[in-house]
């Protein structure tokens, strides 16, 4: 932590907090019947913001999965953009109201469009890294997924390709211990997802996803290796999913409240907050100010999105293919 400026540390905390508060607001909006669906980042904001901060947000490409609110906020998506998506409004930069929320996309910020079938983005990240290498650009692609998704063929095929061709890809598995209802021990038999790197001949590392600096350093090192031509890295960051899978799930059918409460007691966001307070970087006053600023931003974003128009009906057939320039 000592090698990062206080400003950067505070900014990381602000982004984590913003992600958490946006997510919480979306649950409220969902439960009050205003928006149809939420799928959460809660419990994973620390690893997301820490990882994204270790990247070059002016040049690198990110291929987030649906929980990566923290990643896309760091790369330039705004609370307003996210609310427009939650409300499926025409101005939503992710998809213009075409996709469910959390299918992040914004070309100007190099946030690459994704789908719902999981892990298809891993080969895309490899392809972007390949293209960047062909064009002799010093950039990386950063792709994330859940631990359950690390069983998909595209994970294996993508990492193997990246390994063989020594491509500048960083793959971060956000291990939140559950793939909807199925726990880690019914998803994989290996001790660590990071161990899978051995099979692809790439570097693998497992970190505590609640530890801001551990994640930041792991991604920073992975990026340096990638830029130096040393190839891809697989990072497993371990935390816990603090909410049900989505607004349509009931997690009390497969895990206990005690287990969730235990995870909340080591919530990385609070751990980081306390660390910053202990070091005198964050004060109660600054924290209160941040909370107020964030609340205002979210209020404005929500009001804007709520009042924004839906896509026009006659746009339904547009952009299936390139449209001829008239």
């Amino acid at each position, binding site marked *: 932590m000592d090698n990062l400026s206080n400003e950067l540390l505070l900014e990381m905390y602000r982004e984590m907090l913003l992600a958490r508060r946006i997510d919480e607001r979306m649950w409220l909006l969902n439960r009050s019947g205003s928006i149809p669906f939420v799928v959460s980042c809660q419990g994973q904001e620390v690893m997301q913001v820490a990882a994204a901060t270790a990247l070059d947000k002016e040049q690198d*490409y990110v291929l987030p999965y649906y929980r990566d609110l923290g990643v896309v906020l760091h790369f330039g998506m705004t609370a307003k953009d996210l609310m427009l998506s939650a409300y499926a409004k025409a101005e*939503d*930069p*992710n*998809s*213009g109201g*075409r*996709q469910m929320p959390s*299918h992040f*996309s*914004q*070309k100007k910020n190099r946030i*690459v*469009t994704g*789908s*719902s*079938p999981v892990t*298809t983005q*891993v*080969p*895309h*990240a*490899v*392809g*972007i*890294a*390949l*293209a*960047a290498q*062909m064009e002799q650009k010093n950039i990386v*692609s950063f792709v994330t997924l859940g631990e359950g998704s690390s069983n998909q*063929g*595209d994970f*294996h*095929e*993508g990492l*193997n*390709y990246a390994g*063989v*061709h020594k491509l500048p890809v960083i793959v971060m598995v956000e291990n939140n211990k559950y793939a909807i209802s199925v726990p880690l021990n019914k998803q994989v038999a290996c001790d660590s997802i990071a161990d899978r790197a051995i099979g692809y001949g790439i570097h693998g590392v497992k970190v505590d996803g609640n530890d801001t600096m551990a994640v930041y350093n792991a991604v920073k090192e992975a990026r340096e290796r990638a830029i130096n031509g040393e190839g891809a890295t697989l990072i497993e960051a371990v935390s816990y999913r603090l909410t049900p899978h989505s607004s349509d799930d009931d997690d009390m059918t497969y895990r206990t409240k005690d287990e969730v409460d235990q995870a909340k007691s080591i919530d990385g966001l609070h751990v980081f907050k306390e660390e910053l307070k202990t070091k005198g970087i964050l004060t109660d006053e600054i924290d209160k100010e941040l909370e107020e600023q964030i609340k205002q931003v979210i209020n404005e974003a929500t009001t804007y999105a709520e009042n924004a128009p839906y896509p026009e009906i006659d746009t339904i057939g*547009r*952009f*299936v*293919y*390139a*449209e001829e320039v008239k």
Partner: protein
Amino acid sequence: MAVLSYIQAVTLALKEEMERDEKVFVLGEDVGKRGGVFRATDGLYDQFGEKRVIDTPLAESAIAGVGIGAAMYGMRPVAEMQFADFIMPAINQIISEAARIRYRSNNDWNCPITIRAPYGAGVHGGLYHSQSIEAIFANQPGLKIVMPSSPYDVKGLLKSAIRDEDPVLFLEHKKAYRLLKEEVPDTDYTIPIGKAEVKREGTDVTVVTYGLCVHFAKQAAEKLAQDGISVEIVDLRTVYPIDEETIIQSVSKTGKALLVTEDNKEGSIIGEVAAIISENCLFDLDAPVKRLAAPNIPASPFAPNLEKEFLINTDKVERALRELAEF
């Protein structure tokens, strides 16, 4: 102008496009040093090097998916599936990803990838080196499927596919690779995707078909001409999305339609052609629409007599045309 085989036209189009635009590159199994198991990329590795003619690991979903990523970045990848039968592991990448990228991002991203694959029976390929796979992909808006019928068309259509701003599945009939030869200009020409072509004009019966079956239709039409039966041949060229206008025009004129495909009959491309005709040409028809297709079995068997039974040939087309002409 030189006489080229169908596969030489593939190679020439790739070579010219790679010379024209350094963003064009090839990836697939055995496409590099070996020049492809059919030799479609012959000489490209020596000319352009291993960075632009990439021998990939044996994994079809990665070949498609890595290509898709590079295409979103702004490259012009040409991915090869060694046999169309082996495209199945890549279906999720092609349908869920490539075909939907523009629509799902509301025109923010696009995916200009070309995926080439040899399809079709007639080379003793058995169940898994013979399939026609176009119908699997032919109800996926966002995707284009091109199936050329001649060396000239191969060159012009493959260039268009590579330059297209959207994903194109480019299906080459492997039996046509060395069977079909014709003069192919060494100039830079393209053929528009999405347009059918009338390959032969006639007045009595229309044949609507594509790929290698166009060749059989041409031969059959020659024979029938000797008996005074005039056959018009519509080559779809692009089987998805289909050029409805050319079909409607031709069938409205002749009043009779024979639809031919090497694919299994039920659920094939020509079923859609039949629907277009029934929606638009009912009062111009002088006979029921007739379909000639492979039997509804999974694919062509290996035994030579069974393979022959499975396949379309000139005689089968000729018989069907005579029946229709005499109706």
